[in-house]
């Protein structure tokens, strides 16, 4: 009994290793593009410029150092939570690549998860360089987060990535019924953009809007991990519980849509 379990775990580990290493090699080929994708995440820095100019007048309730650290952390968190599974899936579906993938004895989702994780690994050195450049331009903002808060931030970022992936992958299932489903992602991106804390720390939102935002999954995708990384006090347990609750809500919907979608699926292309 134990032997069988052991064997299955070993098998899973081998599959994961092969998937990740092949996807990583593939992503390395596209590192120029990935650098540009990373650069296109400059929004937190633009917003930092605006907020710090306003802060010169004082009265924000956040020091300019806190602002700088928050937005830098938000940039880093965003870099490692970017999800594009919907676009790849749509393309695979329209080009008829989905059918051979579905024949493989491996749930399709792991292929996409491995692609995302490998892409993040490719980004890592470049993001580190940008962070270094930031501190070179703004040395006063430098800080060493404590080891527990780094570990916690990594964990929160991974959870945020998982939640966002799950959310987009659930929406991706519409691709089984529609050819241009990725347009829907534009709608999902809106509340993410304005409620996640990319444009401003949620602490600066009016009380009512902030309370509303925390009833949605979006603040847990940027604001919470970023504040942990920036060394601010965050209700950690409550936040992780909220993320788990959202995941528990989305997962069954995702699985249900996946099964119905597969039944509806008729291969595209020749």
């Amino acid at each position, binding site marked *: 009994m134990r032997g069988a379990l052991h064997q299955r775990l070993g098998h899973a580990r081998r599959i994961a290793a092969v998937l990740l290493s092949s996807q990583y090699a593939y992503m390395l080929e596209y590192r120029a593009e990935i650098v540009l994708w990373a650069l*296109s995440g400059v929004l937190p820095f*633009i917003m930092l410029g605006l907020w710090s*100019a*306003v802060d010169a*007048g004082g009265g924000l309730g956040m020091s300019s150092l806190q602002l700088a650290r928050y937005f830098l952390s938000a940039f880093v968190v965003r870099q490692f939570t970017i999800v594009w599974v919907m676009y790849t899936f749509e393309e695979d579906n329209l080009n008829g690549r989905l059918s051979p993938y579905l024949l493989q004895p491996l749930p399709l989702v792991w292929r996409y998860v491995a692609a995302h994780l490998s892409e993040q690994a490719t980004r890592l050195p470049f993001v580190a360089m940008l962070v270094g450049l930031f501190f070179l331009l703004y040395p006063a903002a430098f800080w060493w987060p404590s080891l527990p808060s780094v570990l916690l931030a990594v964990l929160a970022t991974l959870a945020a990535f998982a939640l966002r992936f799950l959310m987009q992958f659930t929406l991706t299932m519409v691709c089984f019924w529609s050819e*241009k489903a990725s347009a829907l992602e534009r*709608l999902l991106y*809106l509340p993410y953009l304005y409620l996640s804390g990319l444009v401003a720390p949620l602490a600066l939102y009016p009380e009512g809007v902030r309370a509303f935002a925390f009833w949605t999954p979006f603040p847990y995708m940027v604001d919470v991990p970023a504040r942990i990384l920036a060394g601010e006090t965050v209700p950690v347990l409550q936040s992780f519980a909220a993320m788990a609750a959202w995941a528990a809500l989305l997962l069954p919907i995702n699985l249900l849509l996946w099964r119905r979608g597969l039944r509806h699926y008729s291969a595209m292309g020749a």
Partner: protein
Amino acid sequence: MGRYLTTLKVFWIASLTAELEYQANFLIELVATAGNLVGSIFVLSLFYGRGQSLGGWSWEGALVVLGVYTLLEGITSTLLQPNLSTIVAHVRTGSLDFVLLKPIDSQFWLSARTFSPWGLPGIALGAGLIGYAAWKAGATPAPLTLLGAALMLVASLMILYSLWFVLAASSIWFVKIWNATEVLRSVLVAGRFPVSAFPAGLRAFFTFIVPVAFLTTVPAEAILGRASGPWLLAGGAVAIASVVASRWFWNFALRFYTSASS
């Protein structure tokens, strides 16, 4: 000239018919554009709600800047993005050969071949916001103001087009960096706010390196009727220079085009 206009009509009617196959997308685009506008206004209100202003601009003035930005975004998704994003595919597959052989200017063909109606909600909402906010700000539609505003909007379109075109055309050398236009798009987001709201270093960057200031702030000043002579002149000069530069760059890039080997 007449030949170009006739061709343009044929191009755009053909692409419109193709795009109208996906009518549900129009609704999605409308909701997305309106939602984005509401979100942007909310972000502005975060600044103004606490009694602060952005770089000395009034709330209505800042709304005019946002309106100009929304208008430009709409034009980007109507014309610039659908056309210029295909240059890289032409280079990769070698079909640029056919474009170059056509008895029509290749830069014109590449820049105006398709027309996507999905940016129209942005154009309408942007124009509406500009009109409303300018009226609220007490701008008077004096002939001279209107003329200055129209000139500066055209200048800003010329600059925006040239930025996009030069980046897209550089795919003749670097096939893999087609998403450089995504970087441009993300930097241009700064145009949602008056350029004077940024700290000195970023302000210089957004004026001289990526001329975001000339894209939204200068036209908004002109619409509000308070553009000064030097800025109008500078806007015009930058616009003409950038279009000439894009033309020169295209001819220069073509010298390096060696077609895709099959």
